[in-house]
């Protein structure tokens, strides 16, 4: 992974500030302009709507309704059609409106997209990208708020990408589209309309490389997506208390940057894994058990996990706020970790 790491262009503060949704749109636009084999399918993605989260805004106008295709409400057909076209060598980008709806398409995702390369002994491959919005924190209720990256991680053959900034979204989505394996690209709704600097023009970030979003010495927060700004906010508060927190944004869960996780954990000796997905049997369990195992006897405190409560996502705003991790609970957890030993 070392060579990849060196590929990453440095961020430039003078880059134009755009939203993650616009960054997604730029990556799609670039890829479509560059390669006629790239096309987009999904529900309500054509103009004038251009996707309910606006990710495809303008693209059907620019590239036509052949390459930007509205579909019926049938996620199995959407994912399956993307798979089929990819088997023929194209690079389809499918949109599944919300991650919760992966549940209706899991057979295509897990039994087909993920397995076809292996089942054919490498004769076929599935270079698709499935973009999806991830909810939470917006009172959308139990069926429109789930973060299901753990299902994806546990399915061998799928790459899993979760950007937390507009810049990362653009660079990673571009890489997903041109990656030869199926990529699940999760766009966190509560981050989609926040601005950040994004390089103009062609811009690529390698998959499998975590990013230190804030360097620190006393404890490491391993996180991704929605919880990155929460962790950064917690780190800011704690720095005033004299606690120095490193925030490691994984960005991709598969491939997983074990090296970066272990390096930070070894440095600080204290780790908390934070995510919006349900904590129980969640994505953090893999990371926590890996760190506990590989750094056995070398940690100053047990690895903590902070994920969503074991329950469907509640509607009432007060309950929902307590359902997911957020900055104050992250800060509390780190204070306790640092108090340890």
């Amino acid at each position, binding site marked *: 992974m070392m060579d990849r790491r060196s590929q990453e262009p440095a961020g430039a503060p003078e880059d134009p500030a755009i939203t993650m949704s616009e960054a997604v749109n730029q990556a799609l636009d670039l890829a479509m302009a560059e390669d006629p084999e790239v096309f987009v399918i999904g529900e309500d993605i054509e103009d004038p*709507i251009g996707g309910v989260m606006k990710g495809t805004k303008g693209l059907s106008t620019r590239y036509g309704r052949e390459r930007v295709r509205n579909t*019926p*409400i049938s996620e199995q057909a959407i994912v399956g059609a993307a798979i089929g076209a990819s088997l023929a060598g194209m690079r389809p980008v499918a949109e599944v409106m919300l991650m919760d709806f992966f549940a209706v398409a899991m057979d295509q995702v897990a039994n087909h997209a993920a397995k076809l390369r292996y089942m054919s002994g490498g004769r076929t491959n599935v270079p698709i990208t499935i973009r999806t919005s991830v909810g939470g924190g917006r009172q959308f*209720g139990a069926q429109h708020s789930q973060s299901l990256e753990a299902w994806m991680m546990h399915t061998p053959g799928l790459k899993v990408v979760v950007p937390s900034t507009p810049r990362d979204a653009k660079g990673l989505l571009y890489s997903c589209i041109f990656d030869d394996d199926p990529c699940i690209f999760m766009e966190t709704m509560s981050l989609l309309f926040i601005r950040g600097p994004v390089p103009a023009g062609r811009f690529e970030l390698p998959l499998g490389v975590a990013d230190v979003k804030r360097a620190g010495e006393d404890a490491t927060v391993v996180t991704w997506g929605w919880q990155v700004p929460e962790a950064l906010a917690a780190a800011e508060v704690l720095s005033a208390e004299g606690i120095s927190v490193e925030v490691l944004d994984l960005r991709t869960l598969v491939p997983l940057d074990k090296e970066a996780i272990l390096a930070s954990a070894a440095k600080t000796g204290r780790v908390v894994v934070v995510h919006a997905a349900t904590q129980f049997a969640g994505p953090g369990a893999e990371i926590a058990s890996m760190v506990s195992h590989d750094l056995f006897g070398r940690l100053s405190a047990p690895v903590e996990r902070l994920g969503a*409560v*074991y329950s469907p996502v509640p509607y*009432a705003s*007060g*309950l929902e706020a307590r359902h997911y991790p957020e900055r104050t609970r992250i800060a509390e957890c780190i204070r306790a970790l640092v108090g340890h030993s």
Partner: protein
Amino acid sequence: MTSDGGTPPSRPSTSGLSDDAALRIFRTMCTIRSAEDRIVLGLNSGEFRMTYYGVRGQEVIPAAVCEHLRRDDYMVTTYRGMHDCIAKGIPLDELVAEMCGKVTGTSKGKGGPMHLSDPQSGLMVTTGVVGGGLPIAVGLALSSKLRGTDQVTVVNFGDGATSIGATHEACNLAALWEVPVIFVCQHNQYGEHTRFADFTRTRSLADRFRGYGMEARTVDGNSVPAMDEAAGEAIGRARDGGGPTFLECMTYRLGGHTFGSTTEYMDADEYSRAEADEPVARYRRWLIGDRGIGEGVLHEIEDDVAARVEEAVAAAKAAAPPGADELFTDVFSSQGDLPG
């Protein structure tokens, strides 16, 4: 309403409806309209904050259907289902409170507007997943068949939901098992921002679903007499052991997909024609003109339901949100089973 959104040429001027039934239907439709108007008012003013899927234009369907249902009959609906919930009899107070996330709501505020349910009223599930309710409705209907009761189940869904796998599986199974379920497709011409003709080449959904070996028909879902007749027939058949029916109820979504969302992709002429012929006013005219009901009677109903809606809103606003202890209840029957 025909499939191109216009008013059908002929409208039955006589009807099997009694005056009482006709007025009950009017009351239901007015309650729905009044509730929607009040919610939209509150959303516009910032008094409320929620994702609201409007039902304006689709009031006739559940109002007519529920006239043929008993309290112990079952209903399943979707996110766009407030009209169905009201018609099936969920108490207004509990309904509004749930939409506001209050502990006095049907789900103690834990479900929200997309997950209204109240088994006491027979409203068993509101789902937010397109098509997800149909297989469940088949199971509800199966329970009646297995137990030998004459309960029927009605499941509501949109035209867009006919594209998804669950719908097809449920229809095939219902026809095979001849269970007492009525598939009420509220064909409002759009699935989110996509027009019917842009998501299927099928012209008549009734024709397509007849292919599963069940009764199917297209009906003007904005005409009370037509809906009343079709629903009565289908529900009667189901109750008598005659199996399922697919009803393609033609209507029109008078609004965007959700509150606040654009309608720019909708045909403006068609939209204004539909608005000019909107079903509450249309029915009101029919009651007065064709049925000779005095306007005073209607006024009284309108005022009464508006007052009740206002009471429900006031009660919901006064109610408390669910307490933090509710985070860990209702996941399992026993809290001791939580693994976390």
